[in-house]
């Protein structure tokens, strides 16, 4: 072996050792050339990592689910106490805390619920509500006036709210969501695992193949490509052929309700009970069609009965 070859071999051996020291499979001296078996090592290690990552994602999602579910369960007794004292279970919510101290101009918003209807509409803490559905509110009991007006609002209805922000009037449309009756709906469901936590109510929680569904809110550019100017794009259809959706479908409506975002579509889908039938109005390969589907069963869970109307927040 000449010096040049020896030097090359030695350097390659060093590099190979370095790679091996990082506990990763690598191409070592004497390995078959990639041309003979292209990308085998890559494929194996990347596939393994991808499997691990997918498993970690599933764990993360399961943990997030449990955190939400247990928190909702723990908050229930407190909320029920307020129900027992005469709150209308079917009242709608908009998600604002009002300052009870009178403001000559209206009701000052102390807090806005993150992700709540008011926040989604664009209302902020510090805004002063001066009218609800064209009824002016002002004076020392402006906050009470807003609360009273909200008692007449039904879930899913649009509420016109006029506020003063930095002294200038601004109008917002808030879509009210269902409140107590929905969130504290009757019907026990079981938790996964050996324990049976009684009377967990979490009507928005989804289980089974629907949880894998991935959606993207359609932008105008995406819309042009997929042949629709509205709706949500299915980037990953649920497993087991649930809802008969396919990757690349655009959901235009679910039983007539038009989702405006991925979150909105989630709320609509979560309002169905396992076994319920629904009609999806979709665009598939630039053609519009209706798909009849059944909401899949939730593994380990029995259905949650909704009180009164289909809830919500949709």
């Amino acid at each position, binding site marked *: 072996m000449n010096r040049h070859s020896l030097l090359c071999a030695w350097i390659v051996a060093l590099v190979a050792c370095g790679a091996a020291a990082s506990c990763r499979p690598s191409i070592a001296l004497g390995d078959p050339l990639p041309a003979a078996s292209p990308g085998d090592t890559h494929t194996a290690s990347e596939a393994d990592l991808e499997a691990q990552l997918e498993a970690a994602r599933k764990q993360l999602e399961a943990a997030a689910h449990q955190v*939400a579910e*247990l928190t909702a369960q723990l908050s229930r007794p407190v909320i029920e106490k307020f129900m027992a004292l005469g709150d209308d279970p079917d009242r709608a919510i908009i998600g604002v805390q009002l300052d009870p101290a009178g403001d000559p101009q209206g009701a000052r918003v102390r807090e806005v619920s993150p992700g709540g209807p008011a926040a989604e509409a664009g209302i902020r803490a510090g805004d002063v509500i001066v009218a609800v559905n064209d009824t002016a509110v002002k004076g020392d009991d402006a906050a009470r006036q807003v609360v009273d007006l909200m008692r007449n609002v039904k879930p899913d209805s649009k509420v016109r709210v006029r506020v003063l922000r930095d002294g200038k009037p601004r109008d917002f449309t808030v879509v009210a969501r269902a409140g107590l009756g929905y969130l504290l709906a009757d019907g026990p469901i079981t938790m996964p695992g050996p324990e049976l936590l009684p009377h967990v109510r979490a009507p928005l929680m989804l289980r089974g193949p629907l949880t894998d569904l991935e959606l993207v809110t359609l932008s105008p550019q995406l819309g042009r490509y997929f042949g629709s100017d509205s709706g949500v794009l299915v980037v990953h259809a649920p497993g087991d052929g649930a809802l008969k959706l396919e990757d690349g479908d655009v959901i235009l409506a679910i039983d007539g309700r038009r989702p405006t975002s991925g979150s909105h579509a989630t709320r609509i889908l979560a309002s169905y009970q396992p076994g319920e039938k629904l009609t999806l109005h979709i665009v598939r390969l630039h053609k519009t069609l209706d798909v009849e589907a059944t909401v899949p069963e939730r593994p380990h869970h029995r259905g949650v009965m909704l009180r009164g109307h289909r809830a919500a927040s949709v």
Partner: protein
Amino acid sequence: MHTELEQGERLAALLRSLPEQTLGPYDWSEFRRRAHERAALGQRIGEGRRVAAVVVIAVAVCAGAIRWVESGPRPAAPPAAAPRVDEASAERYLASLPHEPAVVRVGTRAAVATLEDHIALVDDLLSAERVERAPPARLLALQHERSELISSLVQVRYAEALADESR
């Protein structure tokens, strides 16, 4: 000098005459190609490991939170002050997040929606209780509940954002 020069030439001639088999396993260009390949693989693996590590840490945090919720005794009367999380910073964090991730995974989003709706309900109840001049203990109970819900929402949204980033 002359002898050394001749010896060098002879040695070079001998080396040149060696059979092909004694050459190195591959030439410099092949070595560089393999080295580049190893570097690229190492980088991809390194990124993957970092993402996996972050995801595993987040799972551990969430699992710890669940255990805390399941095992921790809940006070009969909630403390008047100092909620478990700094609610203001938690809300700032929530406000800093986009309304929804670029790709909405329906399972996680449903968990987020559950918490958001509970918080909205508690906020509306707080408004109603305040205008009715409810006793402070009732308001505190609701405030405490709100803090718990916000804390959980932060965790769930963090998990959602993390999963979205690792895609």
